[in-house]
C-alpha cells in the first residue's frame, strides 16, 4: 500500500484534495452530494477530459501543444460543412470525419516539429495563429446553427428519476469520454508504442540510440492529440448544439493547467491518465461547488487560479519537507 501511495503520489494527493473538497461541499450545501449533480459534473467536463487525455500523450512525449483547441474549432467547423455537403451522415461518419481532420492538423504540427526541428512550443504557437486566423478569416466569425438533427439531439444513455422529480441523466458525451480515456490508458500503458513514448519523452537521444523511431513518435503523439481534439470538437458542437468559431479559443491554457496539475511533467516522460482526469475533475468540482455555495461566478476563476498556484507550490516543495516521516521510507 505504501509503495502504491509513493509511486502514485500526485494521484493520491489529488484524490485526497478532491475527497476533502467533496466532504466540505456535502456538508455546506444540500445539493452537492446527489446523483444529479455528479452526473451534471461528468456531462459538463467530458469535453475537457477528452482534450486532457490527448494533451497528456503529447506532454509525455516531451512536447507541448498550444494549437489543439483552435484545431478543434477548425475541425468542428469543417465537419459541420462536410456533413451539410453530404447531407446528413451519422455519429459514425461524423466521428470518422472529425477524427481524421484532427489527425491531419496534428500531423501538420508533427511534420514541422520533426522535419525542420522546430521546438514544439514555437511550432504550435505558429499553427495556433494560422489555424485561428484562417478560420476567422474564411468564416468571417459566422456561427453555424443549422446542424443535422442527429448531432443536436440529446442522447440519454442512463436516466434515473430523483426523489424530487428531477432527472439525473448520463448523456452521450460521457460515453465518448470514457471510451477516449480507456483507449488512451490502454495505449500508453499496455502497448509497446505507448511505453516508447515515455522513453522518448524522458530522453529523446537515449530513445533514438535504443532504436526507437523518433519521427514516428512525434507523429503518433501529435496525431493522437489531433484525433482527441477532433472528437472533442464534435462532442462540444453536440453539447452546445451550435458551432461558434471562437467558442474554444483560450481553452488550451485551461486544459494545460489541469493536465499539469494532474502530475504530467512539462519536459516529458511523466504523467498518468488517472492523474490527468483527476486534475480536470478537481477544477470542475471546485467551480461546481463555488456555484452551489452561491459565490459570484465572477470570482470562480480567481479562486481556481489561486488553488492551482497553491497546488503547484505545494507539490513542488518536496513532500519530505512537509512530511518528515516519509523521508526514511523513500530511501
Amino acid at each position, binding site marked *: 500500500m505504501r509503495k502504491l501511495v509513493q509511486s502514485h503520489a500526485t494521484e493520491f494527493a489529488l484524490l485526497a484534495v478532491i475527497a476533502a473538497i467533496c466532504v466540505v461541499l456535502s456538508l455546506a450545501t444540500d445539493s452537492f452530494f446527489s446523483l444529479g449533480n455528479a452526473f451534471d459534473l461528468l456531462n459538463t467536463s467530458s469535453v475537457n477530459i477528452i482534450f486532457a487525455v490527448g494533451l497528456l500523450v503529447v506532454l509525455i512525449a516531451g512536447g507541448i501543444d498550444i494549437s489543439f483547441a483552435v484545431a478543434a474549432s477548425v475541425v468542428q467547423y469543417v465537419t459541420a460543412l462536410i456533413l451539410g455537403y453530404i447531407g446528413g451522415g451519422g455519429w459514425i461518419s461524423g466521428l470518422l470525419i472529425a477524427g481524421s481532420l484532427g489527425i491531419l492538423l496534428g500531423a501538420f504540427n508533427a511534420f514541422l516539429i520533426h522535419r525542420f526541428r*522546430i521546438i514544439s512550443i*514555437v511550432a504550435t504557437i505558429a499553427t495556433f*495563429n494560422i489555424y485561428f486566423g484562417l478560420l476567422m478569416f474564411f468564416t468571417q466569425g459566422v456561427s453555424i446553427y443549422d446542424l443535422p438533427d442527429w448531432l443536436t439531439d440529446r442522447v440519454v444513455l442512463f436516466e434515473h428519476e430523483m426523489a424530487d422529480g428531477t432527472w439525473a441523466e448520463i448523456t452521450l458525451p460521457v460515453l465518448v469520454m470514457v471510451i477516449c480515456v480507456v483507449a488512451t490508458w490502454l495505449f500508453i500503458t499496455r502497448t509497446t508504442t505507448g511505453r516508447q513514448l515515455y522513453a522518448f519523452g524522458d530522453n529523446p537521444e537515449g530513445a533514438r540510440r535504443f532504436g526507437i523511431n523518433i519521427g514516428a513518435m512525434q507523429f503518433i503523439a501529435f496525431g493522437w492529440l489531433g484525433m482527441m481534439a477532433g472528437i472533442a470538437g464534435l462532442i462540444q458542437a453536440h453539447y452546445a448544439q451550435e458551432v461558434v468559431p471562437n467558442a474554444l479559443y483560450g481553452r488550451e*491554457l485551461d486544459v494545460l*493547467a489541469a493536465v499539469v496539475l494532474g502530475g504530467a511533467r512539462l519536459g516529458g516522460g511523466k504523467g498518468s491518465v488517472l492523474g490527468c482526469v483527476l486534475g480536470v475533475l478537481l477544477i470542475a468540482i471546485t467551480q461546481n461547488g463555488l456555484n452551489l455555495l452561491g459565490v459570484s461566478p465572477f470570482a470562480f476563476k*480567481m*479562486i481556481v487560479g489561486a488553488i492551482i498556484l497553491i497546488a503547484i507550490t505545494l507539490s513542488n516543495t518536496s513532500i519530505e519537507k512537509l512530511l518528515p516521516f516519509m523521508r526514511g521510507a523513500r530511501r
Partner: protein
Amino acid sequence: MNTAVNRIKELLGPEIAGPGLAFVAVMLFFSLASPQFLSSATFGSVAFQLPELGLLTLAMLLPVLTGGLNLAITFTANLAGLTVAWVLQANGGVDAGMASFILGCILAIAVGAATGVVMGLVIAYTRAHPILVSLSMMIFVRGLGEFLTRGGDISGFPAFLQPIGHGSLAGIPIPLLIFIVCVLVWHVLLTRLKLGFNTYMIGSNIDAARYSGVNTRKVLVLVYTLSGAMSAVAGIIMLARFNSVRVGHGESYLLITVLACFLGGVNPFGGFGRVIPVFVALVVLQLLSSGLNLMGANQHLATAVWGILLIAVMILRWFAAQLMIFNRRKG
C-alpha cells in the same frame, strides 16, 4: 570605420538575420503590391499600434531569456490599467488631476510588480515550471479583474490623458517615444548590467550559474518583477489609447508576444536573444498587418500570416544550419 561596423554587428548580433530578412521582404512585397503602402499614413498607424504589443513583448522577453514564459502579462496589464482607473475615479473621474494620475501609475506599476514577485518567488524557490506558475497566475489575475469589474469596462478619464495615447511630440507619437525609451532601458539592462548578464547565464544553464556564485533565486525574482512592471506600463498605455479599461483588452496579444520573441531570434530554451532584433521583428509584424489591411484583408488574416512568417523564418534558419554543417564537412 571597421570598428564602427564591428560595433554595429555587436549591437545587433547574429539574431538580426531572420527579422532583418523578413523586414526587407515585407517592405519589398508591399511597396510593389500596394501603391499607398510607402506613405506616412502607413507608418503613422504602425507607430501608434506598435507600442501596445511592443511593451507586452518586452515584458515577455526577460522571462523567455531565462528559459521561462510569463503568460500573465496581458491580464497583469489589464489589472494595472484598472488600478489607474480606480485611482482616477476616486479622485473625481473626468476632473481628476495630474497628481492622481501619477499616483495611479505608481500604484499600477506596484501591482504589476507584485504579481511578478509572487511568480518569481514560486518559480525560484519551488523550481516549478514557469509556464505552469504564470498560467495559474494568469487565471487568478483574470479572475480577480473580472470579479472586481463584474466583466464591465471603466471609462471616462481626464482630458490630459488624451496626448499620452494619441499625441505627438516633434512628429513622433508619444506612445512610440515611451516604447523606445523602454526598449533602450531593456537593452542597457541586458547588455550593461550584472542582472542582464546573469539573466543570460540562467537561461543557458541555471545549475552552472548557481555553482558559479550567481544568486539565481534573486535574479529570477527580479526578472519576473521587472516583467510584471513592464506589463503595467503596457496597461497604462492601453488605457490611454482606448480611453477605457476592460479585463480582456489585448488578450489576443498574449501568444503574439511569444511569437515576436521567437521571430526576433530569441532561443526558446533561453540564454540567447537581443532586444534590437525583437524590436525589428515587432516592426515587421505591424507592417505586415498594416499592409494586409491596405490590401483589404482583416486582422484575422494578418494573424494567420504572422504564424506563417514565424514558421518560414524557422524553416529558413533550419536550412541555414544544414548548409553550415554541409560546408563544414566539405572543408
